[in-house]
Structure formats: C-alpha cells, structure tokens
C-alpha cells in the first residue's frame, strides 16, 4: 500500500526534474539577470529597471520588432494563404493529385539550414539562379544583389519562408478537407457548382477552425525564426533584416552584455505570451458567435 502511494511521483519525477532544470530554472534566472549590469563573470551591479528603459530606447531592438511584424504579415500570405490555395488545388476531384501533394510537401523535409543555404545561392548576385532567369528573359535591369540590398533582403527572406512552409500548411488543410463528407460535394456538383465555388463556399468555410490554428502557428512561429535569418543575412545589410533573436545573440555572445540581453529576452517573452493570449481570446470569441 505504501508503495502504491509513492509511485505517481516516481513516474513524473524524471520529466518534472529535467524540465525544471533545463527550462524553468533558466527562465527564472533570466528574469533575475535582467535587473543587473553584468557581463557574465565580473561583479553584478543591481540597476533596477535601467536595462528595460534602455531597451525601449534601443533603435535596433525596436526595429527588429518591426521586421518581425512585416515578416509575419507577409508569411501569413505566403505560407497560410498559399497553403490554402495549394490545398484547394490538390483536392480537386481529378486523378493524380496525390503526386502534387507529395511534391509540395518536400521542402518541409529539408533542414531549414539547407533551405537557407540553397536560397542564399539562388539569390547570389554572381551565379544565382534568380538573376540567371532574369537575364535569360532579357530583364537584365531587374537583376539585383537580392540579399545585399536593404530594400529587398527582408522580402527575399519572406519568400524563402513561404517556399519552405506553404506545403506544411497545405497538408494541414488537406487533412481537414478530406474529412468533409462526400455527399456535400455531390449535391454541389448537381447544383452546377464549379471547382471555384466549391473552394470558396464549401472547403474554406468547413475548415475555418484549421485556418485559425494555422494563423496562430504562423504568427507565434514568426517570433521564433532564427536559422533562416542567421544563415542568409545575420541581420544585415545595415540591420535591414535584424530580428530579436539575431540581435540577442549579438548582444549576449558578441558584446557579452548578459544583463541587458536578459532584459531584451524577458520583453520578447512577454510579447510572445501576450500575443498568444490575445489570439486565444479572439479564437474563443469567434467560436462562441458561431455556435449560439
């Protein structure tokens, strides 16, 4: 009997202890560090909220949120809406669509690092595929140093993100569309509906919940991106593609400002959690109006 009461804690202990040590403890410590002026090994000087005040005057830090916002808005179109469009295309009632489904998902399988390198070469100004295509089409004046130009670099990154993830969202939507009962389509076809009508009036409304989930994933994921930005531009040129994480790595690991970096990390965590809570509330409200 004694053994029976003890065992639940033994079952949860490995997971709870490991999670506390690797994730919870560092979160608490980061919060604590953020009130100090500290480079990691010298003396820690308590400075209250000074790091936070500095963060809100840090031009590059604020700019990196602006870049994340642009990135999120564009990837909503290039990933979620493009995925929706692809899902519509591959669920048309014709043979052979599964081949296209497999094809569009393939980029999801590439490690983000490989994708980033490959596209760095596609955008390369000397031998890159994109400039080669433009020259082939006699559009020489359109050729560009895509990643070296502050006006094009961020958009170039968004396109790569879209190429990489559209197939992922397509697959989520595909699974939802497959669950729509067949007789709904049949009666629609009998009423003379075209594939376009079916896409907008049946498929999209029926998977509205999945679209909401996908938007949440895309928005929250937008804050977490790192590999793509680090490999393709590492924040450059002239901070034109700086995002919070690339900047954090520079502040903490290049400049050694652990205290200030921690404050930047805490602010970002609060932003992500805040956005997550707002999105959840929006979703709940939306569902309530639907059910009544």
């Amino acid at each position, binding site marked *: 009997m004694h053994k029976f009461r003890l065992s639940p804690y033994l079952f949860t202990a490995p*997971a709870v202890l490991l999670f506390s040590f690797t994730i919870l403890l560092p979160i608490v410590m980061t919060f604590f560090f953020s009130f100090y002026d500290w480079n990691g090994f010298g003396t820690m000087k308590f400075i209250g909220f000074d790091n936070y005040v500095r963060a809100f005057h840090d031009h590059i830090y604020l700019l990196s949120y602006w870049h994340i916002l642009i990135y999120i808005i564009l990837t909503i179109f290039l990933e979620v809406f493009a995925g929706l469009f692809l899902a519509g295309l591959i669920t048309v009632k014709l043979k*052979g669509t599964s081949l296209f489904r497999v*094809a569009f998902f393939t980029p999801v399988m590439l490690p983000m690092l490989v994708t980033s390198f490959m596209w760095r070469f596609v955008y390369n100004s000397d031998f890159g595929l994109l400039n080669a295509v433009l020259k082939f089409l006699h559009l020489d004046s359109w050729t560009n140093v895509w990643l070296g130009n502050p006006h094009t670099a961020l958009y170039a990154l968004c396109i790569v993100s879209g190429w990489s993830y559209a197939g992922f969202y397509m697959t989520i939507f595909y699974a939802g569309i497959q669950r729509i009962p067949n007789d709904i389509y049949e009666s629609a076809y009998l009423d003379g509906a075209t594939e376009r009508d079916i896409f907008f009036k049946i498929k999209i409304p029926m998977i509205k919940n999945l679209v909401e989930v996908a938007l949440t994933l895309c928005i929250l994921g937008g804050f977490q991106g790192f590999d793509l930005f680090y490999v393709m531009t590492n924040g450059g040129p002239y901070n034109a593609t700086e995002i*919070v*994480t690339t900047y954090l790595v520079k502040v903490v690991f290049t400049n050694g400002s652990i205290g200030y970096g921690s404050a930047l990390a805490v602010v970002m965590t609060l932003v992500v959690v805040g956005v997550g809570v707002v999105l959840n509330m929006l979703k709940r409200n939306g569902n309530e109006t639907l059910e009544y």
Partner: protein
Amino acid sequence: MEMSMRKSSNSAAFRLFYYVFMSVFSLVYFYPMIWMLFSSFRGNSEIFNKPFSLPAKVDFHNWSKAWQIGKMSTYVMNSVIVTSLTVVFILLFASLASFAFSKLKFKGSKLMLLMFVFGLFMPMQSFFIAQNYIFDHLHIKNTYWALILPYVGMGLPLAIFLLKAYLDSIPKEMMEAANIDGCGNLRLFWSIIMPLLIPSLATVAIFSSLNSWNELLLALLYVQSDSLKTIPVGLLAFSSKHVTDYKLLFSALTIITIPMILIYIFFHKHIVSGLTEGSLK
C-alpha cells in the same frame, strides 16, 4: 442527364488546364532543389556559366571530396547520437509522466501539468541566456549533454500532452481490472500501457527527431569543438572555411538533403501525420 453532360464537358478543358498548370507550377517549385543537385556535379566555372544546362557528367567526385574535407561522417555521427538519445529520453520520460497524469490520482498533479502547459508556450529565447550560463558553470558545454538535456526539456511538454490525450481516451476499467489482479503500477505500465501507446509514441518520435536533427541555435552556442558538432553547425563551419568553393558547398548540401528526401518518400504517410499532429495539439 443534362447536369452530368455539362459536368463532363466542363472537365475536359478544366482537366487539361489543371494538369498543365500544376506540372509547370510544381517544376518551378522544385527547380531550386534540382539546380542544387545539378550544381553539385559541376565544376566551379560551370556553375557560373551554365546555370540551366544538364551537368556535363554525373560525377560523384565532388561528393566524396565534400564528405571527406567537410568531416561529414563526424557530423552525421554526432547528429545520430544526439538525436537518438534525445528521442529515447523524451519517449521514456513522457510516457511515464503521461501515464501518471492520466491514470493515477495524486496531490500536485494539476500544478505539475500546469507547468508543462506553460512550457508549451515559452519561446527558446526566454531561457537560452541563463541556460548557457548554467551549462558553462557545470562544465557540460562542449559535450553531447549540452544538447541532449535542453532538447529533451523542450520536447517534453508537447510529448506529454499528446500521450496524455491518447491515454485519456482509454477506459479506466481496463486499469482497474489489472489492479485488482494484483498488478503493480509499474507492471501495469509496461505490460498494458506501453503496447497501447506505440502508435502515439511513433508520432512523438517523428517530430522530436526532426526537431533535434535540425536544431541550430543551441548547437551553435553550446558546442565549439569541431569533433562534437552536429550537421547544421558542421555545415556552417564548413561553409565559412570554403566560402567560394561552391561545388563543394552544393555537394555537402545535396548529401545532407538526399537521405531526408528518401526517408520522406518511404515513410511519407507517417511523417506527414506525425508533423501535423505534433503542431495541431
């Protein structure tokens, strides 16, 4: 009658348009990967001058050179070790915990579960600064553990929720019957719960292994010694050493990509459902 005639005549033009459009579109979509493959067979000057032609010959010389110079076997081995240990720990710890959360009543279970909910929403940026500091002081930086520990910690919340959701759907009577038979919790877990969990464990294993296989940020920060680098960081190091030797870089990228594509082709149903389920919950 009229309806079906209209439908079929519509389809003929539509079908042609559809197949032509989709074929062209997927070719464009795929082309960067084809270009990468072709470039891996070319010489450096050919890469600059003939971007569209087929490679002069299919020559694996670049590949073997990239494999050797790039120390790829070391990186691949490191990735295999880190990923497999990570997945084993996640599966073991998460299934033990989710069993307790789903089927046993005990004080503090709600609080512990809440902690993992919290973990689901925490971005990596919220902890890596202090984690780096802790690992530095415990001297586990530059070991496999510097990667395995955080990967397991990050993977646990989602794994626990997926497995718990599955266990919740199994009727409690089954456990009670076993308990009356004098089955202890541990035996109940091994002989009844584990076999039932296998499909869900496969799902968890798929997204956990892809996550740790591809992870870059922590691997970049915690491992400096070249002999311990995983594939992503190894490729980065390789690329900064051979900045302009494009044929070798293309070869290295291709070598890393091909096994992923093969795995995908063979297991695409499992992988697709593993990845989508993993992100929807």
